[in-house]
């Protein structure tokens, strides 16, 4: 359990870190695009395309760690009014529901990736194939499944979320 936990935590955090790093890259690209546009009167060829495609993967990369940290927005109003067992059951149900939703998302995102690849959709300017980007997003959502499975098991066993450490 500890071993798997360590792998999942490291893996998901690294993914999130890389996602945000690419976000910073997109920001930098945007700055470069503005500068080039101001100086030469023309934007960087394909900057828009690149940013749009990268964004898909960046956002998808944020989810596994988000799940591992169990930081979704919840209303814990009745937590104080019911017993610990009821609380635990509710939390387990909540995590199961989350797992179900992510399973559906991963499945249908894969279908979308298959469809987009199959019809050879390309980006507007650079004519890059769009399919691989959606495949990457689908893979990232599949990576959410073991993460959420872990959370469900941890919740059943009554373990708290992984502590914040840097």
């Amino acid at each position, binding site marked *: 359990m500890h071993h798997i936990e360590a792998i999942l935590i490291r893996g998901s*955090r690294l993914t999130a*870190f890389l996602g945000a790093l690419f976000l910073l890259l997109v*920001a930098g690209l945007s*700055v470069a695009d503005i500068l080039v546009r101001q100086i030469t009167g023309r934007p960087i060829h394909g900057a828009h395309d690149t940013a749009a495609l990268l964004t898909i993967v960046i956002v998808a990369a944020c989810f596994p760690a988000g799940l591992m940290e169990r930081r979704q927005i919840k209303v814990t109003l009745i937590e104080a009014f019911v017993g610990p067992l009821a609380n635990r059951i509710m939390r387990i149900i*909540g995590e199961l*529901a989350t797992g179900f939703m992510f399973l559906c998302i991963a499945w*249908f995102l894969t279908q979308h990736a298959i469809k987009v690849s199959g019809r050879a959709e390309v980006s507007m300017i650079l004519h890059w194939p769009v399919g691989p980007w959606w495949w990457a997003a689908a893979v990232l959502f599949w990576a959410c499944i073991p993460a959420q499975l872990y959370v469900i098991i941890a919740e059943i066993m009554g373990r708290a979320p992984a502590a914040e450490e840097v």
Partner: protein
Amino acid sequence: MEPYLVGVIGIVVMLVMIFAQVPIGVAMGIAGVVTFSVIRGSFEASLTLFGTETVGKIGSPELAIIPLFLLMGSFATVGGLSGDLYRLAQSFIGHVRGGLAMATIGGCAGFGAVCGSSIATASTMTRVSLPEMMSRNYSEKLATGSVAAGGTLGMLIPPSIILVLYGVLTEQFVKTLFVAALLPAVLAVALHLVTIAVLVRRNTEMGPSGPRENWSATGAALKQGWAAILLMFVVTGGIYGGIFSVNESAAVGAFLAFLIALLRGRLTRANFWLALRETASTTSMIYLMVIGASIFTYAVTVSGLPQVMVDGIRATDLPGTWVVLLLMLMYLILGAIFDTISSMVITMPFVFPLILDYGYDPIWWGVLTIMVIEIGMITPPIGMNVFVIKAMLPDTRIGTIYSGVAPFIVADIIRLGIIIAFPAIALFLVDYFGLPR
């Protein structure tokens, strides 16, 4: 069964799930899919909503502004800009009675202009200004109350994550919303300052005055604060001055905040890691919520419930003002229970059609909505800003913070009344600049 009744049951199911501690995005998503499948008679078809909505949202350029503004806020925090802004405000008004609390409001407002979130503003300012106030014998109530209340400025003062979200959900121009929020934000700052002045006048002990800073100290604060001012100037100037689009201003802001943190040597490996991880984590939280909300909105729309509601409320012959006041009351109650983004996305599917039907301005309504749900950030039992401060101050009683923030809630409700009575405060600049609606 009438579809709209299915819609009503769907809302009840969603609320039950939310109160059972299911994450709000998940509760909305699942309740939406189930409602949709009952109305349309196909569970298989409605499950695909999970796919189409996720595709739509993670590929949306409008929503991509949110992670960028989050990134800017993270780097601004790491780069120590909040401290600079606080000291700058302090050097101007620190010497008056309650001056440090006022400087806190000023610092919050300044930081709000480079950060899109209320929680981030409250938490950084807690770190920066609370120790100063405590060391000058400020009452715990005033100190924590002013940070909690000041934090709410973070999302009223542009850039604001929640205004972006409102714009995306209701198809309004984000820039127009930002401009509309400007004067109400000024009013908010003014009323908060007045509140502090009144409080310390009635009870001098609450916030003793500090020493008057000389000009060289002000100069030093200015010199230290140049980076924060530059960032504010570039981001707001970019948005309002027409050098780049709102999307680009978010990108420029994020990159510039990164550069500032880097050049100041604040960007240790740990800080860098933290800033990026924080951004990623909040991004996933917000997107999950938006995906769920969007699925739920489908279901509610297909059920025809908004139309039934609009017709029903119309039939009562209630004047529009009453409808607005009742909605405000509803948001105040919701704000007590839900966090801000939740109460907005949960209610948007029925409230927005109603407001349009009554002929109210969607931009004005956006500002009003942000203001009323931002009050929810500081009202019990669930006041996110209060929680954040409490989490950072283990020894302070939560009741102390809530009683400290109470006078500010009064001020906020007065401001709400002013904006309802005088919509021009929100719309004047929009009309003046001839912005698209």
